[in-house]
């Protein structure tokens, strides 16, 4: 034992002399000096550095060229150790020869690559001053562990007692060891102590959590017997060993570290010690490093026979007598893998190290993978899915190895980090490892029968890498991988944000429905042995039953399990977990979710039918269908209860298979916001059925008009141009509203070639049409309305057609010559300024009304039929805008575009399947939208199944390509350059149909102030939802104490609260007289009144008549941009105003201020005191409020000026 002692002294000495700076380096040097002699002895072989022992490193791939020892050492010193060089090495990546351009294949796009570099720079651990204290602490820990004395073998109860006196409870896994066990527990000095995991491999990443640095202590083989892998014996011995280590550290006199137990990867077979900083400010307080040291245990690879631990073997025998051949229990893959995992710690370390040497980009690919996983809520812990950083790195390393079957490797060592990352994702997305296990490098391992755990078997290290994954978490991983691969495949947008930046596992945004089952009812009923596995078994049962019951109604289901977290070393695990819940999340398929009939097997198929009946119990019926088939069937109905069908099924399944206690205790939530929009006639919120009456009306009208015989010109098109006709009006079947339609006649030379005369000719046409319609198609009433009286070259008239069905349509005539004439005027240099301006605005209006509105309507109509959730999402979002009094500033089309974007570019999620997710994701996007610098680009033809191209025959223009996007981007930048203050164009929204981008937002609709308010409101809403998510998770899943006991505050936001506007932020609040509101209420029952036979003409008088809106419009016209007005077009109970701070601050007097002013004495100019005091003006708030009262008259009950 002499050499180690010398060595220790040496290290200490060095530590003392050379300080922190190169301590680690010297330690490893010391280690490598003496490595030859003492490789496997029981003396403490010191080696903090990873794989620095040439003799230790067995490069599993034969390709690694053996190099002289000296070389390797040098290199490792170079790459791993020398902290001083590091600063020079780090930016090396940025200094890579940037010969202009990154190949699209290699890094997707320049933007992507540049952002990725930034990200890596941010996330990478710097291995600098900050981390040094933690490294020191590791060295100290190592010293402590090395100095721990061996302990004599003891029986289990003796061992427990003796450790109890030291204040340590042994973290035995469930089931606890039998009291009468014959074997003894023992502590022997470790074979080696190594740093392991991501930190020394340089693939660690910084995030808001503490960095965890792993220290692996290899236990001596001498502790174990050949058969210890059976029946948890290994794990009991391991737990004891760990407890001894904990006792040593806990009771170490010099160093007061925080010690606690945790389970590695949430697997209670793998307890580990967490060492936190002492937080006393002492020498070894490494809290500055924001890290925690994990001490893990490992065994030498040769301890147990590899073959015995294959996944299909059984290692937990029921009773002692059962060990007769042929009567071995079912396979225990999880247990076996848990044992094997401990045996392959070092092997993986070597493998990963080899990979990082082999492939330059491996480390970066690992860091990218870490970020990706974290943003998707995936982690190594079983509760987080069982696929985390380690698994990611191991999979990448595995894929870099050549596959002996196919020859080549999946990933090549020459790939860039992005290619490695994408390739790994593709691998995960493509292979269904549950059904087709992926087994490498071995012949004898086979998947256990009847097990649904995915299998990626690494033969060289004898481990199924995915052993901790449940089928649901694997499905989750696969889905995320698929989505991300799709995003990365997109050539138009770079999707960097959604791949790495956006956090995607927000419960309310990610999933359409959640089911929460408290563990108290989910049970295992008692705290009986092995409760962990019992819970997993029940979860599996839940998963299979729900998947079977819901069939294709859902596209994804995930089960979130409560996590225990660390616990103190001194006591047994508390059963805190009993108060938690499991949470099942569903991603539904909008098309199937509300189907009412499920077909089962045919009655003739006896076996399957029996199983079907057994599954559904009394719900199963035998039915005969039109095609003559007799099938087992389950029928659901919305009539009996208002609960959505999905919830009915889930509750029924729970009741059927888990008892009514559980079914009653479970909480189901889906589409929580949907009730805020008025349901359609059949009580269904989603979909477009509510609009069918109006759409039928439109179809009938079109037929009627086309059927008119004596029209002077043939009709070319009749197109819809209204929210009501594209399923996006808030009130689906209101008869009070008017739907705009556009009629275009065949061309004729008899039109006058003069703008004003064209308008009059249109009126003549309308009069003729009205005559014909009322005479030929009885039941229709018509009236001709005038508009735009101040702009004679804009459209002057429309025809309101009131159908017998009660719907009213507003018909305008489109004549395409107008555009040419207006354009000519616009370009006519000889015309005076105002005339040209009016021509410009007339042209814009023309384009909007006759070109863009119908095209937009068509596109949205198509989308609404394709995505059932789009229409309700738009209506909900419109409600939101209205509720916050913003609607007057946002055109309906703009809001529709915002929501359509959520559906067409759903990344990082899949297309929303219910109104709530559609709405919330839109809000989230709005809250993030940096409209000052980023245009909104909607590609109507994106994300489209190839089958339904151009259903309606209309030329849906081709989808956007990169060039088109570039054009739009350039146009946007041009707007920002000519109008940097955003006085005219604030939001920029372009589509593939409309590259202008300003059609719906020109002349500051909305103004900048209003757009900022939209962002602020969306942000506030998102923050509130986030908080809700977090409290929900805290209550249900995480070890932290629930904020409130017994569920008084469930942390659930009542959806309505997002729709309440705060009036106190406005300067002027005008309350509308209650009698005006009452008339609005009456209007609600207008259809009833109509049925009772009130005259139609009087009804028509009231269609589209809202004096309050007219009043508000007048206010807008009178005060221009001096006061901003806000109102909710639905409630119409208040009009709120804001003194525009930009235009109405105190300023020197001028003749045309543009607003009602009050003169005040301004500042005297400093230069000459003789002159009169300068006169400033301020906005005349009192005067204006008086004016408002004068204008409003009996309309208003109160004008309140706040500021």
């Amino acid at each position, binding site marked *: 034992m002499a050499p180690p002692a010398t060595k220790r002294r040496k290290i200490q000495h060095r530590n003392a002399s050379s300080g922190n700076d190169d301590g680690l380096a010297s330690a490893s040097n010391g280690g490598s000096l003496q490595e030859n002699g003492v490789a496997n002895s029981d003396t403490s072989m010191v080696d903090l550095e990873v794989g620095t022992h040439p003799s230790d490193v067995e490069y599993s791939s034969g390709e690694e060229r053996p190099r002289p020892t000296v070389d390797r050492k040098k290199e490792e010193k170079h790459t791993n150790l020398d902290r001083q060089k590091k600063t020079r090495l780090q930016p090396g990546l940025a200094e890579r020869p940037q010969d*202009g*351009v990154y190949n699209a294949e290699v890094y997707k796009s*320049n*933007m992507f690559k*540049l*952002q990725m570099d*930034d*990200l890596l720079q941010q996330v990478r651990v710097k291995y600098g001053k900050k981390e040094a204290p933690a490294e020191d602490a590791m060295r100290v820990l190592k010293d402590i562990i090395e100095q721990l004395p061996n302990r004599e073998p003891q029986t289990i109860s003796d061992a427990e007692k003796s450790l109890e006196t030291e204040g340590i409870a042994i973290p035995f896994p469930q089931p606890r060891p039998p009291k009468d066990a014959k074997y003894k527990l023992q502590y022997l000095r470790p074979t080696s102590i190594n740093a392991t995991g991501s930190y020394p491999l340089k693939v660690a990443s910084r995030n808001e959590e503490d960095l965890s640095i792993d220290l692996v202590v290899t236990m001596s083989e001498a502790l174990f017997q050949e058969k210890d892998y059976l029946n948890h014996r290994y794990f009991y011995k391991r737990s004891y060993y760990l407890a001894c280590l904990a006792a040593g550290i806990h009771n170490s006199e010099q160093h007061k570290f925080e010690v606690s137990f945790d389970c590695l990867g949430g697997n209670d077979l793998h307890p580990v010690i967490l060492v936190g900083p002492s937080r006393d400010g002492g020498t070894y307080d490494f809290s500055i490093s924001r890290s925690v040291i994990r001490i893990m245990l490992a065994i030498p690879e040769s301890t147990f026979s590899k073959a015995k631990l294959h996944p299909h073997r059984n290692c937990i025998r029921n009773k002692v007598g059962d060990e007769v051949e042929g009567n071995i229990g079912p396979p225990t893959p999880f247990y076996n893998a848990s044992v094997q995992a401990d045996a392959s710690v070092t092997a993986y370390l070597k493998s990963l190290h080899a990979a990082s040497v082999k492939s330059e980009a491996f480390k970066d690919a690992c860091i990218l993978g870490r*970020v990706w996983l974290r*943003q998707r809520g995936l982690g190594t812990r079983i509760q987080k899915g069982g696929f985390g950083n380690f698994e990611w790195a191991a999979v990448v390393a595995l894929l870099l190895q050549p596959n002996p079957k196919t020859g080549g490797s999946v990933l090549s060592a020459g790939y860039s980090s992005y290619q490695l990352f994408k390739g790994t994702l593709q691998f995960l997305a493509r292979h269904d490892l549950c059904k087709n296990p992926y087994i490498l490098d071995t012949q004898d391992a086979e998947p256990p029968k009847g097990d649904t755990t995915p299998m990626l078997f690494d033969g060289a290290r004898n481990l199924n890498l995915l052993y901790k994954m449940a089928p649901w978490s694997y499905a989750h991983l696969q889905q995320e991988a698929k989505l991300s691969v799709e995003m990365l495949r997109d050539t138009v947008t770079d999707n960097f944000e959604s791949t790495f*930046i956006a*956090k995607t596992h927000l419960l309310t945004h990610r999933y359409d429905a959640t089911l929460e089952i408290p563990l108290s009812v989910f049970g295992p009923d008692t705290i009986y042995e092995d409760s962990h596995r019992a819970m997993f078994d029940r979860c599996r049962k839940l998963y299979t039953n729900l998947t079977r019951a819901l069939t294709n109604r859902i596209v994804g289901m995930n089960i979130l399990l409560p996590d225990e977290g660390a616990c103190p070393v001194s006591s047994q695990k508390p059963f805190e977990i009993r108060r938690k819940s499991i949470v099942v999340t569903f991603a539904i398929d909008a098309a199937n979710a509300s189907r009412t009939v499920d077909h089962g097997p045919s009655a003739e198929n006896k076996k399957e039918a029996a199983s079907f009946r057994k599954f559904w119990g009394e719900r199963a019926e035998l039915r005969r269908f039109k095609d003559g088939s007799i099938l087992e069937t389950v029928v659901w109905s919305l009539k009996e209860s208002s609960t959505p069908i999905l919830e009915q099924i889930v509750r029924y399944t729970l009741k059927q298979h888990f008892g009514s206690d559980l079914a009653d205790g479970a909480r189901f939530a889906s589409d929580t916001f949907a009730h805020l929009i008025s349901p359609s006639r059949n009580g269904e919120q989603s979909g477009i059925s509510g609009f069918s009456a109006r759409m039928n009306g439109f179809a009938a009208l079109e037929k009627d008009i086309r059927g008119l015989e004596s029209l002077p010109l043939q009709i070319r098109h009749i197109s819809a141009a209204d929210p009501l006709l594209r399923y996006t009006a808030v009130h689906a079947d209101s008869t009070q509203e008017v739907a705009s339609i556009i009629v275009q006649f065949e061309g004729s030379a008899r039109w006058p070639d003069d703008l*004003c*005369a064209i308008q*009059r000719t249109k*009126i003549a046409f309308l009069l003729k049409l009205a005559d014909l319609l009322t005479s030929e198609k009885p039941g229709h009433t018509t009236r*001709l309305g005038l*508009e735009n*009286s*101040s*702009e004679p070259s804009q459209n*002057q008239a429309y025809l309101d057609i009131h159908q017998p069905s009660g719907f009213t349509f507003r018909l305008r005539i489109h004549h395409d010559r107008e555009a040419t004439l207006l354009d000519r005027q616009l370009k006519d240099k*000889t*015309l*005076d300024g*105002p*005339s040209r301006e009016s021509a410009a605005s007339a042209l814009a209006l023309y384009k909007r009304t006759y070109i863009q509105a119908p095209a937009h309507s068509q596109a949205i109509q198509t989308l609404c039929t394709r995505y059932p959730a789009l229409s309700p999402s738009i209506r909900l979002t419109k409600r939101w805008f209205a509720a916050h009094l913003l609607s007057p500033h946002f055109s309906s089309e703009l809001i529709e575009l915002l929501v359509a974007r959520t559906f067409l570019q759903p990344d990082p999620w899949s297309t929303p399947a219910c109104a709530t997710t559609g709405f919330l994701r839109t809000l989230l996007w709005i809250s993030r939208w*940096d409209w000052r610098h980023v245009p909104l680009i909607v590609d109507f033809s994106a994300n489209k199944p190839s089958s339904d191209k151009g259903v309606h025959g209309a030329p849906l223009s081709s989808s956007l390509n990169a060039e088109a996007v570039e054009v739009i981007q350039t146009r946007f930048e041009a707007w920002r350059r000519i109008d940097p203050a955003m006085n005219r164009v604030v939001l920029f929204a372009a589509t593939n149909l409309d590259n202008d981008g300003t059609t719906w937002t020109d002349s500051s609709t909305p103004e900048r*102030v209003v757009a900022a308010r939209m962002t602020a409101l969306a942000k506030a809403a998102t923050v509130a939802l986030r908080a809700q998510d977090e409290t929900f998770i805290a209550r249900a899943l995480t070890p932290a104490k629930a904020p409130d006991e017994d569920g008084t505050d469930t942390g659930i936001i009542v959806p309505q609260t997002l729709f309440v506007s705060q009036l106190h*932020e406005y300067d002027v609040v005008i309350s509308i007289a209650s009698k005006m509101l009452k008339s609005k209420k009456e209007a609600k029952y207008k259809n009833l009144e109509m049925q009772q036979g009130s005259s139609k003409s009087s009804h028509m008088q009231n269609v589209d*008549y809202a*004096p309050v809106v*007219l009043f508000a419009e*007048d206010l807008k*016209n*009178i005060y*221009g941009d001096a006061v901003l007005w806000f109102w909710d077009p639905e409630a119409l109970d208040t009009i709120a105003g804001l003194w525009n701070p930009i235009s109405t601050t*105190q300023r020197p*007097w001028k*003749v*045309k*201020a*543009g607003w009602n*002013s009050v*003169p*005040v004495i301004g500042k005297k100019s400093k230069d000459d005191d003789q002159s*009169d005091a300068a*006169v400033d003006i301020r906005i005349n708030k*009192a005067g204006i*409020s*008086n004016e408002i*009262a004068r*204008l*409003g*008259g009996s*309309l208003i009950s*109160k*004008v309140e*000026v706040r*500021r």
Partner: protein
Amino acid sequence: MPPSKPKSKSKSPNSTPTSVNNFAILPLTLPAQPTVHLPDTLAPPKHYLYIKPHEPSAPTPTADRSLFISNVPFDATADSLRELFFEQLGDALVEHVEFDSAVPGTPAVKRWRNGVAGSGSGAKSSGTGTGPATSKLGKKRKRDEGIVAEGVVEDDESRLPGIWPGELRKSGSTAVVVFVDRASCKGAWKAVRERVKSGAEVRWEGGGGVEGLVGLERYKQHNALKYPSKPILQASINAYLSQFTRAESARNRVRKYQRSIPDEDGFVTVTRGGRTGPARLEDAEKKKVELEERRKSKGVKDDFYRFQTREKKKEAEGELRRKFELDKKRVEEMRMRRGKVRPET
């Protein structure tokens, strides 16, 4: 929204200045409105008119008997201003008032190019009456004068019925008040200055007695006026179209004249119409496409010579490089804006 800061100075009416840039500042007392609730920091409502004798940059015949008013109340009409001057400001008699703005706006008539045939100053100053329907300008003009760039100068028959019961003024707009004679104008100006000096109260009644100018009545009437009866409309359209035909032939006459007469430099103006009518737009487009096609099939191919391919390659490379620089700049800007690239938490 930060509230605009009230001035620290005392709020007494004395602090209100009485004149600015030759304008007299005339405070008007407003009718009390019980529905208005003001915070204590605000003084009781007053309206301030800025008045001075009219001095247009281009002299007009009525300038010397006119006063210029800035910050006209939104509900001012010719009648209400007439009443104001007659009853409270020196019994002055107002002939008419020209407002510079209206809500809803007054239609602008496009003028003849370069003012060739247009004496029409547009209808901008037409709002002398109490409503658009009674505007007098149209009547005054002879039809042949009224050749405008498009349409016709409408008269009572051809004008579309008005859809608002009365015009409002934009907040803070101006007006020119024309008095019957210079004496009235002087008297009014004197009275204004006296009132300003003495601080005697001048009341503003507003509305000018126009039925339905404000309040619910305004919107009720609008809803009715918006839908004129069909016979009236038909008659108006017929009148317009026959006037239009006449105007069009007048315009053609002018064009013909222009086509045939060279100007002083000896050039003949090119105008529409002539021996052959203008080409149809569609035909022109078609021809253009055709030509393009022909050029494509005939011309020298771009990759015929080696230098062409080489140059193309170079160009592509340069383009890529340029794009890369651009992207780099964009990312840099993004970094400036958003700070570090960090995964969202």
